[in-house]
């Protein structure tokens, strides 16, 4: 029988071990950082430490608000370790889905079967989105669980908003990697592209934070789209998330068109 979403189902089946690993990594990072909040901020030493740091560094790392619960969670997890982990996971998924499959010789056999290329590309993208929703959802749930015991005073709805921003940001790297893999058939180029988008976005955001004169450059930074309005305190940033989702959709469309037109050479 021809059953629904075969590429999607196989992709999840092939990658559940890796997903368990990433979930453990995200869980470990949250469980390590969040409980430290009360002990670090208990006696005002943190504020003193930050006052003595170079302001450029404080701006880059977003440490101004670190003595509040939302500021602490933003600058440790959502804006830093979480971005790092989800971006690396997404980039590796995106680059292996088409570019990696072609290099490994698997794509040739897969596409010789009763699967269309549009279907292959879209189901691969769907698999990445679903895995990313799982990682981001898991992060949100764990942060909410630790909220009260760690005295973070977070609004759970804002935690969800920050997770959505994080998922959207990581998906930009993942889908860019998917598209470059589909265009070139090369895993390395796909990985460089996905990671490159993340690094450049982070750098542009950091530059923009240094002075209001250069703030405009943040409009080109996916990192800024996700976090410039601080969803952990301000809630869902609709336009920012829409921008992230839009870029990802365009990247998936590019991947699909590129795969459709190309020779698969393995």
């Amino acid at each position, binding site marked *: 029988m021809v059953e629904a979403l*075969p*590429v999607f189902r196989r992709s999840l089946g*092939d990658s559940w071990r890796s997903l368990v690993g990433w979930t453990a990594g995200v869980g470990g990072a949250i469980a390590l950082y969040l409980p430290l909040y009360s002990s670090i901020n208990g006696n005002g030493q943190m504020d003193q430490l930050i006052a003595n740091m170079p302001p450029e560094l404080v701006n880059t790392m977003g440490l101004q608000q670190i003595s509040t619960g939302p500021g602490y969670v933003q600058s440790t997890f959502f804006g830093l370790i979480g971005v790092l982990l989800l971006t690396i996971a997404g980039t590796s998924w995106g680059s292996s889905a088409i570019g990696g499959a072609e290099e490994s010789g698997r794509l040739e*056999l897969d596409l010789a*079967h*009763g699967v269309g290329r549009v279907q292959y590309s879209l189901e691969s993208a769907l698999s990445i989105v679903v895995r990313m929703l799982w990682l981001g959802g898991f992060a949100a749930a764990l942060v909410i669980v630790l909220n009260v015991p760690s005295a973070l005073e977070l609004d759970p709805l804002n935690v969800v908003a920050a997770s959505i921003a994080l998922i959207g940001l990581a998906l930009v790297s993942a889908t860019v990697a998917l598209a470059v893999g589909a265009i070139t058939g090369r895993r390395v180029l796909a990985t460089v592209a996905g990671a490159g988008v993340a690094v450049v976005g982070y750098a542009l955001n950091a530059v923009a934070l240094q002075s209001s004169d250069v703030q405009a450059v943040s409009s080109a930074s996916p990192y800024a789209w996700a976090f410039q309005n601080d969803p952990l305190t301000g809630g869902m940033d609709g336009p920012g998330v829409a921008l992230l989702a839009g870029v990802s959709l365009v990247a998936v469309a590019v991947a699909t068109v590129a795969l459709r037109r190309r020779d698969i050479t*393995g």
Partner: protein
Amino acid sequence: MIAAITTSELHKAFGSVTAVHSLDLSIERGTVFGLIGPNGAGKTTTLRMLLDIIHPTSGTIRVLGQDPRVGGPALRRRIGFVPGDLRLDGRIRGRSLLQHYADVSGPVAPGAIDALAERLDLDLGRPIHALSKGNRQKVGLVQAFMHKPELLVLDEPTSGLDPLVQREFLLMVREARANGQTVLLSSHVLSEIQQAADYVAVLSRGRIVAQGDVASLRLGSIRRLQVTLSGATAEEVRAALASSAHLRDLEVSGDTSVRVTATVQGDIDAVVKTIARYHISDLTVEEPDLEESVLNLYGEQGRTERSENNG
């Protein structure tokens, strides 16, 4: 009746390199068609175009009556394909991988996968990455045969298989033909094509240099001969063999034990009777590699190009 495969003026260029030159093929339904040629002759490129994995630069293709670019997944479900460079990997178990392809290209009759695996002596419970090259190749064969497709396109399907499994494979090909399925089989092993195919096309440097039924192509007429003998001097042996019209590249060396190598083209009887006069301590007669025989038999052009490359 519509032919299973026709190509006309089929052309494929990768950048400035032309891999396939104005290829005209016609393969009747219910036959086994062999495509032979040395590595790099354009066999894999041709077969990939039939499956729409790569697109022709120009020319037309009809597979089961349809253009592969238009036929899409529905057409490919009617084809079983073994890629020339089959690389399978991953933790997925053989059975799950085959079930995935069955989901995509099925329906597969219940028990068909297990029956094929048993025939080929393949353990489906092991992860693909733990399988030997030969066993991965068996997985490749099972996924091509399991849904009994109308057309089988097999690119060097026996590479890495041991002789027993190769024999089983040839049986499977014959059964497929008896079943009304069409088989397009590429190989660089002559004997395989001779045993399995009804018709053959010889491909060299992207062009068909000969085609017809297997017997008419005299593909078996070239042999490499190596003999070690005693009871005569090298000069005597050379003199005895030199008169034979069927020998080329004759080399004779040694004194007490004389070593002879030569290429026999055509009738081998006279040569065997000549050397039978001496005491023979070792004798091998083997098929030349395909490149040699194809170029010798059909490729005057290929031959000159080859010597230019060597020079």
